[in-house]
């Protein structure tokens, strides 16, 4: 049987994807990009949050509580965007067996869960003075809580297997199934009567927000996005190096075991 096709170089997008799957190339590239991502993330976040906290005007109705928005809205956007990243990595992992996609997905999980936690707690802290309740079983809040559990489930499932590959496959399937929650989060405020307000910023219309509040929100959103990517890249770099360490230690142990067997024989 001719197996040459199986070993032939992949063409088109497959070859491009596998070019970036090389861990050595990823370490070199990410090493150059990471300081810039971190610096951008830190500086834009500090500018956005400082501006929002000290110089942006208070809301005529909500008063100073509106300043929680500069954390809550970026973390809500990142919670969903992080899950989109997780789902994309899962596709790469299941379809192309991209080795870096498994590692990236495993590292996106905890960071995504953390931003979803920030989104839920800051939302609760904003809800108490505005709605008079820490929590309501509203469609938007509940669907974001489901997203948080999906992240936790992904973290647990990836670590539940002795074989990292099997854990990654199971996690990828869960991530793809869970992606159905993303449109529910997005459109929950339109589909149902919710206590949570509808979107203020949309892709199709002009924002219904005072420009003096929009700019700090833009800065903090961009800063937190760069910070999120920087943390995921740093964790993935660590994951790549840890996998290499495990491989080297395993090869060394096998070599030593082989030498012992030879000596006994």
């Amino acid at each position: 049987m001719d197996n040459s096709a199986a070993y032939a170089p992949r063409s088109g997008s497959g070859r491009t994807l596998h070019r970036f799957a090389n861990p050595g190339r990823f370490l070199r590239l990410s090493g150059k990009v990471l300081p810039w991502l971190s610096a951008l993330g830190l500086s834009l976040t500090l500018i956005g949050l400082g501006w929002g906290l000290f110089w942006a005007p208070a809301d005529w109705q909500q008063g100073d509580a509106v300043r929680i928005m500069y954390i809550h809205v970026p973390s809500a956007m990142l919670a969903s965007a992080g899950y989109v990243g997780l789902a994309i990595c899962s596709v790469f992992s299941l379809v192309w067996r991209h080795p870096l996609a498994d590692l990236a997905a495993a590292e996106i999980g905890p960071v995504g869960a953390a931003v979803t936690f920030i989104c839920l707690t800051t939302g609760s802290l904003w809800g108490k003075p505005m709605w008079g309740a820490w929590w309501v079983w509203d469609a938007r809040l509940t669907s974001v809580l489901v997203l948080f559990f999906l992240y936790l489930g992904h973290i647990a499932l990836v670590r539940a297997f002795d074989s990292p590959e099997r854990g990654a496959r199971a996690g990828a399937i869960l991530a793809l199934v869970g992606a159905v929650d993303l449109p529910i989060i997005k459109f929950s405020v339109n589909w149902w009567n919710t206590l949570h307000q509808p979107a203020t910023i949309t892709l199709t219309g002009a924002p219904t927000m005072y420009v003096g509040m929009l700019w700090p929100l833009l800065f903090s959103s961009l800063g937190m996005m760069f910070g999120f990517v920087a943390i995921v890249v740093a964790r993935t770099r660590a994951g790549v190096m840890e996998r290499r360490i495990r491989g080297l230690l395993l090869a060394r142990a096998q070599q030593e075991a082989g030498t012992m067997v030879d000596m006994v024989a």
Partner: protein
Amino acid sequence: MTHLPYILAAYGIAAIVSVWFSVDAWLRMGRARRRLAAIDPRGQR
């Protein structure tokens, strides 16, 4: 009604979680780099 405690709590929680994850990623990367350099000096990047 003052909103200051809610605002401080929101910014405080966000700061603690962000700093925790940043420092953890930084330390983990440094630890992995040192271990890799000790095991395989050619693998140092």
